[in-house]
């Protein structure tokens, strides 16, 4: 018998090379681009009005020591209603303490006043921590102090140079998950869509090959959906504080996955190949029709923890900035192409198996 020779050949379709290239670029860019500077902690987080207040600020990716002269800090009530720090003492690149005098009267009357801390540094740019300190009203109110609120303005702020991803409170570095968690769902939807298309083709022409194709796409689509769910759960644990918070989008995507899992179970319970293929085709088109209201319509009708739900469209405005778009869109395209590639492999394997 002839000894089988191993041919090491790297000949591959161009789009498969492109898939690898795009994904490698996404993983590198997703990891090495730094975040903008931000504020992670402010102590104390409660204070009384009408007193001097010294707050310790902990920064993130900050370099307070490099240029202390132009460092400014404000506490903002709303809009231009701010007070500026009278003195700032820098104790390290990540730590500083700022002195404020909180006026005893406020332009609005509330039980407690949440103040936003705004920092401006010549190199780090502006960093903001909303609801940094809660102020309780003073016992003795001096109305002449009201003008203190309008003395200073936040102006001539700096911008950090270079390419960075935005710093968001709570999210911090996990903003990078946008390039890994979100494309999973895009890939899943595209794969299920292609699968539904082949099911339609099967209905029209009745070729068993179309059934094989549609099933391969569902198998890989399920893997991507499951990955989206698991990565989302891990992300949610450290940002929303629970693996599963019964968010409407979480629930609906789990239901969508269960519908497709049920398709696979139903398929394996039918013995006749033609009947199996016909049932699958019908069910599959129905399932894809359900996917659209489940993932795109219902989550937008109620409140959701996910960005871009409860009315406003996703991927617009504050959710993604232009730097992130430059990585996010390639990530989506790359993972979709990877899904198509994997489905093609599954289809070819199933075809080999079926021909025996």
């Amino acid at each position, binding site marked *: 018998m002839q000894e089988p020779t191993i041919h090491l050949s790297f000949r591959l379709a161009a789009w498969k090379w492109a898939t690898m290239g795009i994904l490698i670029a996404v993983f590198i860019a*997703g990891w090495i681009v730094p975040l903008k500077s931000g504020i992670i902690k402010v102590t104390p987080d409660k204070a009384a009005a009408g007193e001097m207040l010294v707050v310790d600020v902990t920064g*993130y990716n900050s370099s307070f020591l490099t240029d202390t002269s132009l460092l400014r800090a404000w506490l903002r009530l709303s809009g231009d209603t701010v007070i500026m720090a009278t003195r700032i003492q820098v104790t390290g690149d990540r730590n500083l303490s700022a002195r404020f005098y909180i006026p005893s009267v406020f332009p609005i009357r509330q039980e407690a006043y949440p103040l936003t801390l705004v920092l401006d540094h010549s190199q780090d740019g502006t960093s903001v921590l909303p609801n940094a300190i809660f102020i309780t009203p003073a016992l003795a109110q001096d109305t002449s102090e009201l003008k203190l609120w309008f003395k200073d303005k936040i102006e001539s702020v700096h911008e950090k140079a270079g390419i960075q991803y935005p710093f968001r409170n709570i999210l911090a*570095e996990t903003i990078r*998950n946008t390039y*890994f968690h979100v494309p999973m769902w895009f890939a899943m939807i595209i794969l299920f869509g292609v699968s539904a298309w082949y099911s339609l083709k099967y209905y029209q022409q009745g070729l068993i090959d179309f059934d094989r194709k549609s099933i391969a796409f569902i198998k890989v689509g399920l893997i991507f959906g499951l990955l989206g769910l698991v990565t989302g759960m891990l992300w949610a*644990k*450290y940002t929303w504080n629970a693996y599963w918070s019964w968010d409407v989008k979480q629930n609906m995507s789990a239901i969508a996955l269960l519908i497709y899992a049920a398709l696979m179970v139903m398929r394996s319970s039918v013995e006749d190949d033609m009947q199996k293929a016909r049932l699958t085709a019908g069910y599959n088109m129905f399932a894809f029709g359900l996917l659209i209201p489940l993932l795109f319509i219902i989550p937008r009708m109620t409140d959701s923890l996910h960005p871009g739900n409860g009315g406003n469209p996703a991927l617009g405005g504050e959710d993604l900035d232009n730097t992130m778009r430059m990585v996010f869109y390639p990530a989506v395209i790359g993972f979709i192409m990877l899904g198509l590639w994997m489905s093609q492999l599954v289809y070819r*394997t199933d075809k080999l198996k079926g021909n025996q």
Partner: protein
Amino acid sequence: MKLNKSFHIYGLFQQRMKIKGILIMVMLIVFQSAQAEGEQSPDFIRSIGKIYVVAGVCLIILVTLFIYMIQLDRKISKIEKRQKNE
């Protein structure tokens, strides 16, 4: 009579269960190690701006895709073997 593992229904079932068992084991180890580290220092995963969450997400994606590819590879090998025997 000796059972031929790959052609007997029980053998097939056993093999299936083996793969599933490995998958479940991997999942358990991942979750347990995450929990164990959480007990050691309560803020390990939240340190350095929660960067370990991103690491975990990337790891889950890569490990799952690799396991899937390995399974597919084994499937193809099996078909090739059967084709050779015919």
